[in-house]
C-alpha cells in the first residue's frame, strides 16, 4: 500500500513509510505497547514519560456512567493501530453495501472513492497542496502533523502539549495522552491572517482520522485561522474506539474557528475532548457536526480567561438507528465582559437518541458577562428519543444568562401546506428537516453542506434504516 503523505513533504522518507511494515503491536493497551510506540517514533524522554504516566492515570480512572453507555467497551481487547489510515478494507468490493451506496448517492468523485475504500492511502492533492504550503511558509505559519512537530519544534510543542487537557481531565484524555499518534499542529504568528481554511484543499487527511489524534492550535496575538477536519462521507473504520484530543490557544485579539464533520461507521465509539483557552478580546468558534458513530461523547469547551473574550459553539447532531449522540458544549466565563453563545440542533429518528449536554459557568468577578444557549430538538417518530441536560452555575450577580430549549416534531400544518403545493410526504418532510438544520449547515464549507443535505435526505427516505 502506498503511504506517501503529502504533509509534511520532508517526511516522505521517514517514519511514515516504516509504519506499514509494522502490522500490529498486539492486543490490549499495555505499557509494553506504549514503550514500543515511543521508541518506534524515536521520541524524547519527556514524551515517553508523559505517555507512561498517562497510562497509569487512565487505569486509575473509572469509566463514566453519566453519559452514553460505555459499559461494553472491552479495554483488554482494543488493538492499537499503527497504520496511517483508519480503513478496514482495501478494495472497493469489500466495503459494506450501505457505505458504497452512500458514496454513490452523495456523488463522491472517483479519486475520493479510492481513498475512502482504502485503495489509496490519501487523497492525492500534491499540486494544490504545494503552492498553498509555500504561501503558508512565507507567512511563517507552521502547519504539520503532531508527530513531525515533536521532531521539528520540540520546545514549542512542549510549551503547549497537554496544558489544557492533562491526563487528569478525563479517562479518555488520559488514554489519548498515552497512545496519541497523528493529528495536526498549527502555529500562526502574531498578526497573520490565514485566508484559506486549513485542510479545505485536502478534505480527507488520513492523519486527521486516526484512532488517538492529538491536535494543537496556537494562534498568536491578533492572528486568524480556520481549520476544517473530517469527512461527511461515512468512514468504515478498523478501530472501534476513537479518543481524540484538541487543544487550542487563542492569544489576545486572535480568532480561531474549528469545524468538525464526523461520520464514523456505526460500530465506533467516538469520545473526544476539545478545549480552547481564549485570552483578552480573543474569539473561538466551534462548529461541530455529528452524524456517525455508535456513540459520540463530545463537549467542545471555551475557557474565557481574558476580558472581552468570546466563545461560540454551533452544533448539529443526527442520530439514526442504534445511534446515540451525546454532545454539547461548555462555556466557562472567568473574566469580565466575556460573551458566549451555544446553538445546538439535534434530530433523532429510527430509534436514535440525541442528548444535548452543556455547562455554562460564570465565575465570581466576571461582571458584564453574557451567555446564551439555544437548543432545538426534532424527534421524527414515536421510537426515537431526545434529551437536554444543561447546567448553569453562576457566582456573579452582574451577569446575564439565558437558556432556551424546545423539542418538537415535524409540524402537521407545515407538511399539509407543502403537500398541497405538490410535494410528496417524503419530500415535504425532507425539506422541513433540512430547513431545521440549515442555520448550522450554512456555516459549513459548501461541499460539506451539499453532502450533508444529501445525507439527511437519504436518511429520511430509507424506511429500513
Amino acid at each position: 500500500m502506498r503511504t506517501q503523505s503529502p504533509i509534511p513533504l520532508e517526511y516522505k522518507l521517514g517514519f511514515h513509510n516504516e509504519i506499514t511494515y509494522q502490522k500490529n503491536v498486539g492486543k490490549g493497551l499495555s505499557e509494553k505497547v506504549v514503550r514500543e510506540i515511543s521508541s518506534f517514533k524515536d521520541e524524547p524522554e519527556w514524551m515517553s514519560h508523559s505517555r507512561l504516566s498517562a497510562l497509569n492515570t487512565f487505569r486509575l480512572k473509572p469509566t463514566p456512567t453519566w453519559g452514553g453507555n460505555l459499559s461494553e467497551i472491552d479495554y483488554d481487547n482494543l488493538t492499537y493501530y499503527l497504520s496511517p489510515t483508519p480503513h478496514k478494507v482495501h478494495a472497493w468490493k469489500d466495503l459494506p453495501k450501505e457505505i458504497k451506496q452512500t458514496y454513490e448517492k452523495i456523488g463522491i468523485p472517483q479519486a475520493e472513492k479510492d481513498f475512502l475504500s482504502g485503495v489509496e492511502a490519501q487523497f492525492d492533492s500534491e499540486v494544490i497542496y504545494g503552492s498553498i504550503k509555500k504561501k503558508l511558509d512565507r507567512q511563517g505559519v507552521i502547519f504539520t502533523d503532531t508527530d513531525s512537530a515533536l521532531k521539528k519544534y520540540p520546545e514549542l510543542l512542549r510549551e503547549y502539549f497537554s496544558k489544557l487537557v492533562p491526563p487528569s481531565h478525563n479517562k479518555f484524555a488520559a488514554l489519548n495522552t498515552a497512545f496519541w499518534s497523528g493529528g495536526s499542529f498549527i502555529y500562526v504568528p502574531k498578526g497573520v491572517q490565514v485566508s484559506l481554511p486549513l485542510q479545505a484543499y485536502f478534505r480527507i487527511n488520513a492523519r486527521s482520522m486516526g484512532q488517538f489524534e492529538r491536535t494543537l492550535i496556537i494562534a498568536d496575538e491578533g492572528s486568524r485561522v480556520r481549520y476544517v477536519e473530517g469527512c461527511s462521507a461515512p468512514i468504515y473504520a478498523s478501530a472501534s474506539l476513537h479518543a481524540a484530543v484538541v487543544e487550542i490557544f487563542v492569544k489576545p485579539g486572535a480568532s480561531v474557528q474549528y469545524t468538525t464533520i464526523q461520520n464514523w461507521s456505526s460500530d465506533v465509539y467516538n469520545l473526544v475532548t476539545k478545549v480552547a483557552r481564549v485570552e483578552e478580546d480573543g474569539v473561538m468558534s466551534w462548529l461541530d457536526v455529528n452524524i456517525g458513530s455508535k456513540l459520540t461523547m463530545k463537549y467542545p469547551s471555551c475557557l474565557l480567561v481574558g476580558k472581552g473574550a468570546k466563545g461560540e459553539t454551533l452544533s448539529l447532531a443526527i442520530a439514526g438507528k442504534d445511534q446515540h449522540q451525546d454532545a454539547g458544549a461548555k462555556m466557562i466565563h472567568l473574566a469580565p465582559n466575556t460573551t458566549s453563545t451555544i446553538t445546538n440542533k439535534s434530530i433523532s429518528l429510527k430509534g436514535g437518541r440525541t442528548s444535548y449536554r452543556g455547562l455554562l459557568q460564570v465565575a465570581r468577578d466576571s461582571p458584564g458577562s453574557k451567555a446564551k444557549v439555544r437548543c432545538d430538538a426534532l424527534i421524527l417518530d414515536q421510537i426515537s428519543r431526545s434529551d437536554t441536560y444543561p447546567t448553569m452555575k453562576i457566582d456573579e450577580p452582574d451577569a446575564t444568562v439565558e437558556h432556551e430549549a424546545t423539542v418538537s416534531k415535524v409540524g402537521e400544518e407545515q407538511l399539509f401546506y407543502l403537500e398541497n403545493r405538490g410535494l410528496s410526504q417524503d419530500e415535504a418532510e425532507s425539506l422541513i428537516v433540512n430547513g431545521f438544520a440549515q442555520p448550522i449547515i450554512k456555516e459549513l464549507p459548501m461541499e460539506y453542506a451539499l453532502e450533508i443535505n444529501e445525507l439527511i435526505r437519504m436518511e429520511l427516505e430509507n424506511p429500513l434504516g
Partner: protein
Amino acid sequence: MQKIIFFDRSVNSHQKIKLRKKGRHLEIIGFILGQAHQSISVSLETEFLAPETSCQIDFRIVLKDSATCHFNGRIKIAHHASKANAFLNAKALLLSKNSHAEISPFLEIETADVTAGHSATLGKLDEEQIYYLSSRGLTKNEAENLLTEGFLSDILAKIKDDRIRRVTTHKVKRFLSQR
C-alpha cells in the same frame, strides 16, 4: 390544578410528580428565596405517563448574602404519553457577590408527538430603574426591594387560591425586608 412550592430556608428537597391519568393538567409555581448562609437544594421530577397530560412549571429564585441554591427540574415524557405538553421556566436573581446558583433543567423525551421546552434566565436588577427610584427619594435598599418584589409579582399574581396567595405574598415581603 395548581401546586405552590415555597422554600425560604435550608433544605434538601426531592419531589417526584407522576401524571398518570389521561388529560391531567398541573401548574406548578415555585419560589426559592435564600439569604444568610442558607443552602437550598431542590430537585423536582415531573413524569408524564399518560396521553394529553400537561404541566407548566414556573420558578423564581432570589438569593441574598451567601445563600446557595441547587435547582434541578427534570421533565420526563414517556413513550406512550402522546400529545403531552410540558414547559419549565426558571428565572433567577442574584443580589450579592457571594451567592451561588446552580440551575439544571433537564428534558428526557421519548416520543415525537409532544410539545416540550424549558427556559432559564439569570439576570440582575436594572441599574437605570434603581437610579430612577433613588431619584424619587427611595434608598438604594428600598429601590432594590421594590424591584425584587416586581420580579416575583408575576407568578404571585398567578396563584389562584386567595388564601395561599395572601400567605405567600406575606412570606415574600418578609424575605425582602430581612437585610
